[in-house]
């Protein structure tokens, strides 16, 4: 006979909500770079407006966690799960802000001619969104090893960022007229690099949920 069925159900509901929020954030991030590639101002403005929904989702999940902690006295793994959810929603919300930040840069760029074809920035996005997606799966499956391995993949995003940085700096050195446009792209890349760092933080929370141990897995160089 399973006991505490109502509590277990509410815990599962929270995890479902977390996944739903994760998918909102993934979508925002992918679309922000899509908007950049296509100079789609309408899409960019939509992403900026939708960020409010992500923020609300975060507060809703936090409130449910607080209620469960206050009323259900979760212990051990259940307590660690709830504490991790509180941390993870905060990381997700910040990733949402980075997506919004990219969308704002798209609006700022407006219809300026493109500096160069975008290659590494979309790669960074794809990699980061993939890491984020798999990290939330790992959380759901309590998969500590996958979490650790995802965190090491942050190095790939860092390398891409480094490449973008060097390339953009060379543009600026060659032709100072490109400085404004290059700087904006650099901001975009920096937002993406930070997103991958936040995925690493999520992975640390997964390790904590499973093992109870708190430590940094992969310290970013940026």
């Amino acid at each position, binding site marked *: *006979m399973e*006991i*505490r*069925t*109502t*509590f277990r159900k509410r815990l599962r509901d929270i995890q479902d909500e977390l996944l739903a929020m994760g998918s909102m954030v993934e979508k925002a991030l992918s679309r922000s770079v899509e908007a950049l590639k296509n100079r789609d101002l309408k899409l960019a403005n939509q992403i900026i407006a939708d960020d409010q929904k992500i923020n609300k989702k975060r507060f809703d999940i936090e409130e449910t966690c*607080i*209620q469960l902690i*206050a*009323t*259900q*006295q979760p212990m051990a793994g259940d307590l660690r799960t709830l504490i991790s959810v509180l941390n993870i929603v905060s990381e997700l919300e910040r990733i949402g802000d980075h997506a919004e930040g990219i969308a704002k840069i798209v609006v700022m760029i407006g219809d300026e001619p493109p500096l160069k074809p975008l290659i590494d920035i979309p790669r960074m996005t794809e990699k980061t969104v993939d890491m984020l997606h798999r990290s939330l799966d790992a959380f759901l499956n309590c998969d500590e090893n996958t979490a650790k391995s995802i965190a090491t993949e942050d190095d790939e995003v860092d390398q891409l960022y480094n490449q973008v940085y060097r390339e953009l700096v060379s543009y600026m050195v060659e032709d100072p007229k490109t400085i404004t446009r290059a700087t904006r792209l650099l901001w975009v890349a920096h937002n993406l690099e930070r997103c991958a760092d936040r995925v690493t933080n999520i992975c640390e929370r997964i390790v904590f949920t499973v093992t109870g141990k708190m430590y940094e897995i992969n310290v970013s160089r940026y």
Partner: protein
Amino acid sequence: MSLNYALLNERTIPKNETKLKTEKVNLFYGAFQALRTISLDIPKQSITAIIGPSGCGKSSFLRLFNRMNDLIIEARVDGAVAIDDINIYDRDIDVVELRKRVGMVFQKPNPFPISVFENVAFGPKRHGKTNRSELEGIVERSLRQAALWDEVKDKLGQSALALSGGQQQRLCIARVLAVEPEVILMDEPCSALDPIATLKIEDLMRSLSDDYTIVIVTHNMQQAARVSDMAAFLMMEEDRAGTLVEYGPTSQLFTNPKDKRTEDYITGRFG
């Protein structure tokens, strides 16, 4: 305090109906006032917990709903206590019928020293049911509802006293359910049980609240938080009369109480 239904969690309380209501209730034991002007609406098909320090009148308040206080000489109630808007302290109320509608589970499991089957069949028999197969149906249904059937179905003829404490308490709940009540009052139903048996009773309460209105008195604040939809905090005044300090959805009372005295009590600053 009347209910603000908008604050209730719709997932846990499906019906926006008041089942039990007290209006400016005062309870006296002789010259001693045990409860002072308590007004409270208790929603149908939900669990309402009454919490508060020892001696604040929690059990006295609970016993208003099946007129158990009538059994105490010199007890006197004024104000109204209503079930489905009918004042149960009116003269023409049949108390036996009332106690059939309002069942009660006590602190210590108190099965009768007879078989498991006879314990559950006791109430229906007293209310005139004698047909064996009908009684068998009632006993099985009640034991299933009390999540006990699988554990006792092969020992229905054995003495109820041979069951564990947790099983005995679920048997007492089955005994209450056998007479098909609408309201179940629980006075510290888990205080004599171990933690696992306690959690089983709490699960049972949750599933019963789909059909019944449950009011529980508990010293165990954590239990009130875990199991209830609504919570009422009672406190003693200087003359030791119990008064209602705060009443609201459990999730709110335990995370953001409106009254400082509630905050002080639930955070362990007094009591």
